[in-house]
């Protein structure tokens, strides 16, 4: 990994975040008046004018944008119109809940998806393989909101086993995690299976087996590490997919995380909070992909050599 490669990647990452934040800034301001969205049409016209001035919404968008950028450089990311607190604090207050939900979902996604993919590949073209893949396709096809409401109906209303919404105890994790991990694990199962099948057909696997290496060792030490490379690639998308899934799931289960905050902030045009939440989400997705980029070179010597060649430092 060369210095130039790293700088190039970091520059692109920053550019991506800047484009996203700018795009959201413009779209949010053009698509609705925050004063009307927060207070509705039942507010006095004088109050509307005062609030627009107070919040700087009476100025042209380009001027608002310049103020926004200028304030960012001074460490001011704006205030929530709804409760007057710093947008940074409002979003950060929600972050632990989202991270805990994403973290547990990620653990279960990996624990279910990857073994299922390997299992399926090792039983290629059997009933087990087909059953596993059918389940994976089903898991992928069920929309989050539908699965969430279905789980509430079954586990909360019918059997009264689990709390319907909230985040107070470990039990509250179960349904949101199932809702999110079902689709995610399905993706990982399919990718892992394909990658494993490709690797298992490689000559070096046959060579290892011919040399008398036990099957379990071949799978563990030769097949799986090589199959992991494409799986790492989708881990970058996985973060994005978790964020998107989280927005829906958090709303269905009243999970007080960033996703739910984002939905209500967009609905209310609480602009600074939307900007902050989008910045955070964009940052996490870009950072995840950056890590994948760097990890990829480290995992696969061929990629590393190719990058070195392209940057003129290779042999």
């Amino acid at each position, binding site marked *: 990994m060369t210095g130039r490669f790293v700088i190039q990647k970091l520059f692109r990452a920053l550019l991506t975040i800047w484009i996203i934040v700018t795009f959201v800034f413009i779209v949010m301001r053009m698509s609705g008046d925050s004063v009307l969205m927060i*207070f509705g049409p039942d*507010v006095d016209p004088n109050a509307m004018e005062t609030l627009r001035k107070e919040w700087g919404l009476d100025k042209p968008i380009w001027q608002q944008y310049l103020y926004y950028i200028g304030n960012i450089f001074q460490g001011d990311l704006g*205030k929530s119109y709804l*409760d007057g607190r710093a947008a940074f604090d409002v979003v950060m207050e929600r972050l632990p809940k989202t991270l805990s939900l994403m973290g547990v979902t990620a653990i279960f996604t990996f624990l279910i998806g990857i073994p299922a993919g390997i*299992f399926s590949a090792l039983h290629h073209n059997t009933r087990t393989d087909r059953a596993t893949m059918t389940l994976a396709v089903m898991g992928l096809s069920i929309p989050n909101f539908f699965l969430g409401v279905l789980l*509430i109906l079954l586990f909360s209303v019918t059997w009264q086993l689990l709390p319907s919404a*909230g985040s107070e105890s470990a039990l509250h994790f179960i349904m949101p995690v199932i809702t999110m991990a079902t689709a995610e694990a399905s993706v990982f199962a399919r990718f892992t299976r394909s990658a494993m099948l490709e690797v298992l057909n490689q000559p070096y696997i046959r060579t290892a087996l011919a040399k008398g290496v036990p099957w379990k060792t071949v799978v563990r030490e030769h097949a799986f590490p090589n199959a992991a490379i494409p799986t790492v690639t989708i881990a970058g998308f996985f973060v994005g997919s978790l964020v998107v899934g989280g927005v829906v799931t958090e709303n269905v*289960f009243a999970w007080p995380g960033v996703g739910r905050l984002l939905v209500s902030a967009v609905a209310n045009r609480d602009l600074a909070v939307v900007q902050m939440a989008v910045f955070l989400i964009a940052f996490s997705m870009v950072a995840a992909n950056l890590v994948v980029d760097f990890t990829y070179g480290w995992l696969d010597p061929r990629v590393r050599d190719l990058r070195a060649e392209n940057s003129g430092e290779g042999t």
Partner: protein
Amino acid sequence: MKTKLITPMALIGMFFFTLLFGTVLPTNADADSHRDFKVAVQKLPAVLEPMRVNSNVHMRILFNVGESLLKIDYKNGFKIIPSLARSWKRLDDRTIEFKLRKGVKFHNGEEMTAEDVAFSFGEERFFHKKRGWILAQMYLGHLNKPEVINRYTVRISAKRTDFLLEKRMASYMSEIISKKAFLAAKDWETWSRNIVCTGPYKLVEIKTGDYIKLEAFTGYWGKRAPVDSILFKSIPEVAARIAGLKTGEYHIATDIPPDQLKNIDSYRGTSTVGGPIPNIRAVQIDTTNKVLGNKEIRQALAMAVDRQLIVDSLYYGRATVPNGFQVKMSGNMWIEDFKGLSYNPKKAKALIRKAGYKGELIHYRVQPNYYTLEVATAEILVEMWKAVGLNVKMEIVDNWSQVLKNDESRHLVNMSHTAFYMDPEGLLWRRMGPKSPFRFPNIYGGKEPFCYVPAAFDEWGQQMLTTTSKQKRRQAVREMLKIVDSEAFQISLHTMPIFYGIRDEVNWTPYPSEFMDLMAGNLSFK
């Protein structure tokens, strides 16, 4: 080829599962203890300072925390009764002298005095142009600064004759706050999230968008609160709110849509309560375009609506058809024999013919259920209008800016009107008078207002505002109602109901108001 690779993975999975979920269950046991009362709400306010918000979700909670000098007795004909003031006397048509109750404590333990009353309506809060004034001016903008007579006596006066001054002092935004606590707060925003009042419950915590927690105030001057704490929990998804009610996680679930009433009523252990509040769902007409500039077309639109059918089919008869733009809770200002424009398709057709309408397209902007059953109601309306020959097209838009945007396709929009103070002044005058947003040019773009209202409406309105005679006031209200019907710049549809799901073990009666009274006398357990 078989492998046992899955076994260690399964073991790891079981380990994490046990680690994460091996705690003692279940959490819904809380509902067994009535001491901690839980309410699932669709939405929460971000702050509790009444002059910092203006919303029904705020009113729902606020009155349990903050009290005014007077209060409305919802169970006894909406009479005005003493609250923080033990008595009051009208000095003239614009001034009231209040004698305060002694020994009333704020949640911080300080005694409430006339200084706190004056401060609540004073320079640093209400009259401050960047604080209370912004939103409270439309309710209290004509008041003078209060005059402190002695520690327990205060005078509040208006700049003009104010028939409703007592009602204002018993309603939203007139809550008395602690001067000392206000001045000790870091700033307006911090104060807004940490208000200190005198109510039976004190604010413990606002977790924005998640919950608001109240706790019984042991130093309360009146009857002690019936529960130790109340948690208002935000559950935006209606299915989750109903599920939580059925499982007993919540004692009450708010904002139940009419199509779910049967579902809750038929479930063992739950039922529904609630009904109309002083709010009228309406269709606002932009009268500045060519087609709807013709008042015969507007009247035809109003007469084509079978309101009873909407109430019966969508609300199962649990809403009501209003007599024009007035609410029954107005007491002696309710003009019972005024019926408003009623369903008359024959007359509607005749008016359309007379107007020379040639099928010009009328646009109808609708949001996806900002109001209860908004889309379903709009679909029914479009069919009713079609039945009399009006070509109305429903257009779904995303938000209020798009609904109100002043361009050539702004014709019909949905609206609702709350009768503040349960009085015509709070509905007719506030929503249709000269300070109504619909009569201001420019505020939604363009150059023209939503509608032009005849000068006679404002003249009768002035009589309503300035007279102290009930008869003259009633006469003014009647004439204003007639003008609204004759000009038809608004079409009334039905009163807006609020429904709650409630556990059978809870005795609680909702008022015809957004306010949820969870105090002694209105909340108990079987």
